[in-house]
């Protein structure tokens, strides 16, 4: 397992280089002058500021050198300065990323808790009314424009029913817990402040549910399909004929063999969650990198957009790495093949 983990971690390096190559290519595809797009207008009128900027990003060098300069600045944690917030993009991202991680994590937990039982039961009772209902609802789920769903949810549950709190991660009177992880639920637990944890969860509930719409649909459908492929297998009949009870057969024989594709799709779903966070966070006023990306895009704040793009791609890659490791952990055959 350790050799496998180590090898997989080594493979991360070319992937990360690939990601930076793409973001670099996008940065250089700006039709207007890169300087004009990446520094504040007032600053662009001062030749000396422009000269410093050009030197810093190596804009007068040939492209390969420019890329290396870009990479060096990134490794130093220098993502450039935001045109809109006038702060280093890296500092902005550090402030906003924990909120997104917390939201996406709660959303994926909700999706898994709902999707696995739904998918397993729909497959078990294939063709019945429950299966039909699950298929219909999940088809709607994966087809949903969640930005509209978020608007409707806020209008109903906040403006009309007053069931959920307003914008932000905590009620406005509450101070955030001392920062350890940046996730208010975890930090609140560490500080032993359960009221604060409850309040953070209260604020998380609706945005996380809306964000989870896609992944619930996706994971349920894959669980159902994967279970269907397993349910017809002989070893289930053997288990049943040995007298094992149905729930036991379902969980220990069927689900355990059907879980691998489900784990893969969880990795993909996480990408959807990150993408969906741009819309969900914007509408719910959630102070994460999604809303940051939206405001950056609407203010033509190019360095900030690229910063978010890079961070999202890296997070997505790390999640897929975790998926691969989970694969190896669950399936000894994969471990054997890889080491």
């Amino acid at each position, binding site marked *: 397992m350790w050799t496998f983990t180590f090898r997989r971690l080594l493979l991360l390096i*070319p992937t990360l280089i690939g990601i930076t190559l*793409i973001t670099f290519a996008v940065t250089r595809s700006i*039709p207007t002058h890169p300087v004009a797009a990446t520094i504040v207008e007032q600053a662009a009128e001062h030749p000396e500021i422009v000269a410093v900027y050009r030197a810093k990003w190596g804009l007068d060098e040939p492209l390969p050198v420019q890329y290396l300069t870009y990479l060096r600045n990134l490794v130093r944690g220098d993502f450039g300065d935001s045109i809109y917030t006038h702060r280093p993009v890296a500092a902005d991202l550090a402030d906003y990323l924990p909120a997104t991680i917390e939201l996406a994590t709660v959303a994926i937990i909700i999706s898994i808790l709902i999707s696995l039982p739904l998918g397993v039961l729909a497959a078990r009772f294939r063709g019945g009314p429950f299966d039909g209902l699950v298929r219909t609802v999940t088809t709607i789920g994966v*087809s949903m424009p969640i930005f509209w769903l978020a608007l409707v949810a806020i*209008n109903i549950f906040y403006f009309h029913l007053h069931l959920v709190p307003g914008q932000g991660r905590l009620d406005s009177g509450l101070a955030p817990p001392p920062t350890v992880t940046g996730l208010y639920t975890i930090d609140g637990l560490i500080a032993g402040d359960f009221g604060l944890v409850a309040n953070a969860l209260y604020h998380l509930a609706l945005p996380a549910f809306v964000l989870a719409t896609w992944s619930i649909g996706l994971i349920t459908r894959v669980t159902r399909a994967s279970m269907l492929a397993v349910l017809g297998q002989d070893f289930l009949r053997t288990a049943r004929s040995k007298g094992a009870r149905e729930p036991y057969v379902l969980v220990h024989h069927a689900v355990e063999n059907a879980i691998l*594709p489900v784990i893969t799709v969880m990795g993909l779903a996480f990408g959807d969650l*990150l993408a969906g966070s741009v819309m969900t966070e914007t509408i719910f006023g959630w102070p994460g990198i999604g809303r940051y990306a939206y405001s950056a895009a609407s203010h033509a704040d*190019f360095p900030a957009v690229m910063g978010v793009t890079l961070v*999202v791609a890296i997070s997505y890659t790390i999640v897929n790495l975790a998926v691969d490791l989970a694969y190896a952990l669950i399936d000894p055959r994969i471990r054997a093949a890889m080491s």
Partner: protein
Amino acid sequence: MSLERTLEAGHRPLSRAAGDLLALCRRHPAVAVSLVVILVWVVLIAGANIFSPFNPLQPAMKVRLNAPSLEHLFGTDQLGRDVFTRVLYGGRSTLAAALAVVAAGSLIGTLIGAIAGFGPRWLDEVLMRVTDMVLAFPIIILAMAVAAALGAGLGNGVIALAAAWWPQYARVTRGLVLELKSLDFVAASRTSGRHPAGILVRVILPNALPTLMVMAAVDIGRAILNFAMLSFLGLGARPPAPEWGAMIAEGAQVMDQWWVATCPALAVLTLVIAFNMIGDGIRDWMDPLMRRRR
């Protein structure tokens, strides 16, 4: 993923497509219903100027935010414009953009995948690594970055999405080409002295085409959803031009007048559901395992 696999497994000659479609509709009534839904939308959108007497851009302040009525089927928006009219005209932008994204994405992807599958080993390696790099980004995030670089607008939105769209086609095409390359009729045309490029274009690609076309057709729904998202974020079509995503964004300010945002949203939802249903039907149909078990 499973779509790619089942589609790869089930390429069929184009001539049988019509018969297949009929059989598919008979087996999955949902596919037939979906086709009707898509057809109705296409007719309504194409004939927008026939089905609606209103101008989609002209404000009419006297009838601001009117609820749906016989005169204004979907009500009116903040500027008194007829929402039904705007949904129809908006469909022209959204559908055209989605079609353009799928067309450009599948064309680029097919080209790259074909070269990777047919060309020398090193080129395959290089092209597939580039494909993997692009796949490391969630589509809408990469599209957002490209759109931000190019500047907002309908055309730039299409370019941005297409730039993130092609990798899946590259992968599928490469798989198909590798599979077809090993078949006897390709070997036969090679021994008959045909130029390798000729073999690729005249012998291999026509056999890969049906699979790719099915994949592209089913893909339109996802393109509609993604383009609406991009526009909602202000990076696709810009107001006042009617476009579904942009209209939902405008309607967001007046959610108590639910029809302004909900009608374009339902247009997106019904079309995407229809395309997804057809995709499910085809996947079921082409998966021999699933068919046997019925």
